[in-house]
């Protein structure tokens, strides 16, 4: 009997206008969207490769210690799920005078939009009259008058309805997947396809949730007209209102220090320490002038060969020639440089600790504010689904943090390498300074590796769990409502 109810419900749905409209809209939008975004992905990949090559070429010609920090900034490749979901822009896109503000006014169209807006709306349209419609047409009374338990009717409606709803969705995704698999510019490995499968499952959980919401409202309504209004009311709250309100409410509940104020404090600390450096430099110069006398005066006349500050090329050259000719001069230069290092490095460290503490304080408070907003927004299934879909495909907030961590890990490898290179260069050339060319052609290269699926799953499972919980709650409510439903 259950099979008969399911097949009746399924047939009813697919012969309906809403199924045809849903199918056409879903397939056309998904396929068009994937084709456009795949082309976008190709362009971004080409841009990324160009940036990496530009960096390599630049480093092979102009690498020098003083500005290496700015030169080595690792580039982020476009997310591999870019043909489906548009990632969150990084700070480099938002802190430029030439940034593109259009996405602020209109969020771009992607798979997330299709699932969260189109499919959820379609799910509600499929189920708002599942009970009320049958009651109004009188068929519900006829069905219940037979020996069919209400549980079976409800379950049959759920299975038959969701099957009719998920068919256009899965079909359009299959077409999209086919396009991705035959596109030579998109190279997805096994883990990417596994993520794609999980994304489809998570989307189905989300779509079923809205079908159940409609079913639940239908079991508590007498007329379809009232049912659809109540459904749309809830849909607006859950999809359009709560998610957008939460970041603003959290920003008002939990205040964080001003970024500009923090930057200003940072500048103040830096200025104070620069003064201290100058003072210590003078002390070292004075000490060496006492120890080495005439030899040091000669070195001073060459403006210290660029060891202290940037100097004209003639002074640097003179110091180099003098060091090559006189071992005593060379030893003095090395001693001077070492003394400077020993004096200044501890001060740098204290300064760095102070400024780091300042930024850490801001970042910790910002993280708390984000967490509060995230938790507040969890009452909307839309937000839970966005977290699951984005974090699963590496296009979410977590991916930004993950990239920063990967960069940090790379830094741990790269900077000791640079230190060693500098030490070697200084041994060879005593006039080697902050702006001398440094050969780092054999440096470790930055390679971005996608986060392991296991780690991603650990992160998304709680949110996925909330989605399942919503499903259970809505089904239980629909069940309770239908058990007491007056079919007359």
């Amino acid at each position: 009997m259950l099979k008969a109810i399911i097949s009746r419900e399924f047939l009813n749905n697919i012969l309906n206008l809403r199924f045809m409209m849903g199918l056409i809209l879903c397939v056309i939008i998904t396929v068009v969207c994937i084709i456009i975004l795949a082309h976008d992905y190709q362009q971004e990949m080409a841009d990324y490769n160009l940036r990496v090559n530009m960096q390599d070429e630049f480093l092979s010609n102009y690498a020098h210690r003083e500005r290496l920090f700015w030169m080595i900034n690792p580039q982020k490749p476009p997310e591999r799920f870019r043909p489906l979901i548009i990632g969150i822009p990084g700070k480099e896109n938002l802190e430029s005078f030439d940034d593109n503000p259009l996405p602020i006014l209109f969020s771009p169209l992607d798979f997330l939009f299709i699932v969260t807006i189109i499919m959820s709306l379609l799910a509600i349209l499929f189920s708002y009259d599942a009970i009320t419609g049958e009651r109004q047409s009188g068929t519900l009374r006829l069905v219940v008058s037979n020996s069919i338990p209400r549980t079976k009717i409800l379950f049959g409606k759920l299975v038959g309805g969701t099957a009719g709803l998920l068919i256009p969705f899965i079909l359009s995704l299959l077409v999209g997947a086919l396009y991705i698999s035959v596109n030579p510019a998109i190279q997805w490995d096994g883990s990417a396809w596994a993520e794609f499968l999980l994304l489809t499952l998570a989307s189905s959980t989300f779509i079923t949730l809205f079908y159940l919401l409609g079913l639940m409202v239908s079991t508590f309504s007498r007329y379809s007209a009232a049912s659809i209004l109540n459904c749309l009311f809830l849909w607006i709250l859950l999809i359009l209102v709560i998610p957008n309100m939460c970041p603003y409410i959290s920003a008002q509940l939990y205040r964080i220090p001003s970024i500009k104020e923090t930057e200003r404090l940072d500048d103040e600390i830096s200025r104070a320490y620069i003064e201290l450096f100058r003072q210590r430099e003078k002390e070292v110069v004075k000490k060496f002038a006492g120890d080495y006398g005439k030899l040091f005066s000669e070195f001073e006349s060459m403006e210290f060969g660029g060891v202290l500050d940037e100097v004209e090329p003639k002074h640097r050259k003179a110091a180099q020639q003098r060091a090559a000719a006189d071992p005593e001069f060379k030893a003095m230069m090395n001693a001077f440089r070492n003394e400077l290092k020993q004096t200044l490095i501890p001060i740098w460290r204290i300064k760095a600790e102070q400024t780091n503490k300042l930024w850490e304080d801001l970042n910790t408070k910002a993280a708390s504010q984000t967490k509060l907003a995230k938790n507040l927004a969890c009452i909307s299934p839309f937000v839970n689904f966005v977290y699951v879909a984005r974090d699963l495909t590496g296009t979410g907030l977590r991916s930004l943090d993950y990239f920063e961590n990967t960069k940090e890990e790379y830094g741990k490898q790269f900077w000791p390498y640079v230190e060693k290179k500098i030490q070697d260069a200084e041994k060879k050339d005593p006039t080697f300074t902050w702006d001398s060319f440094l050969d780092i052609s054999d440096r470790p290269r930055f390679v971005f590796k996608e986060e392991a699926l296991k780690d991603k799953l650990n992160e998304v499972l709680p949110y996925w769990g909330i989605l399942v919980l919503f499903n259970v709650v809505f089904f239980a409510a629909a069940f309770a409502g239908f058990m007491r439903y007056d079919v007359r």
Partner: protein
Amino acid sequence: MLRLIVRKEMLGNLYNYKFSIIIILSTILILASIFVMYRDYCLTMENYEILQQESEAIAIIRPTPLAIFAKGLDENLCRSYERGSSGKIGVSRKQQSVNNLFKLFTAPDLLYIIKVILSLCAMLFAFDIVSGEKETGTLRQSLSNRLKRPILIIGKWIGGFISFILPFFVVVLLGTILVTLSPMVDINAQNWAKLGLFLLSSVIYLAIFFSLGLLISCLTHRSSTSLIISLFLWATLVFLIPNLGNILARQLVQIPTVQQLELKREQSWIKQLFEIGRLDGSQRRELVKRNTIENDKLTEDYRNRFNRLVTVSQNITRFSPAAAFTFLATDIMGTGMAEERRLKRAVLQYLKDRDDKMLDYQRSSVKEVLGQGGLSNCLILILFNTLFFASSYVVFLRYDVR
């Protein structure tokens, strides 16, 4: 007779469940939105006061209280602009940039409520005006009298729209009065005029969706069919076309990423510093001059492409009344694309002029807004309105009421 129909339509709506639920929803949302955005404005003002202490800034724009109603790009506009290295313009980080969740969701301002939620409500008000009456049989009865069809359809439109728009006006007015009572909000005569224009454009925009709902109702014979078509068209016009236009424009205009542009600038600057230490006086000047020319060319090329991208994107998205309304509303409130472009132009000109005083920038006046494309957006909205209403009028004249 027209008066009678308008009255009947209004009374019919007043006793309807649909009316109650839509009014409750819009009242809660509008008041909540105004309150949340007012608090956000207070935070922006606090941040502005901190930014003002910045001595190196060349331009810091005061947040507009109108951002409470249409935030648009105000967060972008109110950054401080500074003279960066090698002619580059530095911008301060947005206060919201530390909370990444802001990047995922839209500002829940009045513009958003009107554009997305109230447009849906307008369609829900209108989708069964004709098909619903046909189902209940009252349409047949009405037309069996001497009542003319044009009078009936016009009366239905006026009665339905007034009963929808009046509560909206009352709630917005209430919210605005509450906000203006706060000492933090200083709305001058110019801003009142802008707010008035914004509300007028909102009415025109909502009338489009009301007329569209009426058209669908006249094209269908069952209100359930009418509802499904209404919802799909609403999703297409409000979300699909504007969002698709955004990504479609990128296919038509080739533009490098901002990262590439910034990397090129950064490298040019580092290269200059690296080489300058190895050159003497006159050669240094020559190098700086050469680099400046190269950088200017690079930036100009990017900005030309970017302006083309924005124009193409705006032209595509204007096929949707929601996009035309967004452009119009944000431009009127001084938080839109036109204002952003104008400010950037002013900053660039200021740098060219090498003035020592801080840039004194005033947002566009109403007259300027209308000249900068506001009028064309307004005309698009009126055109949509005329088109949908005229179509529903024509279709209703031939409607089979049996």
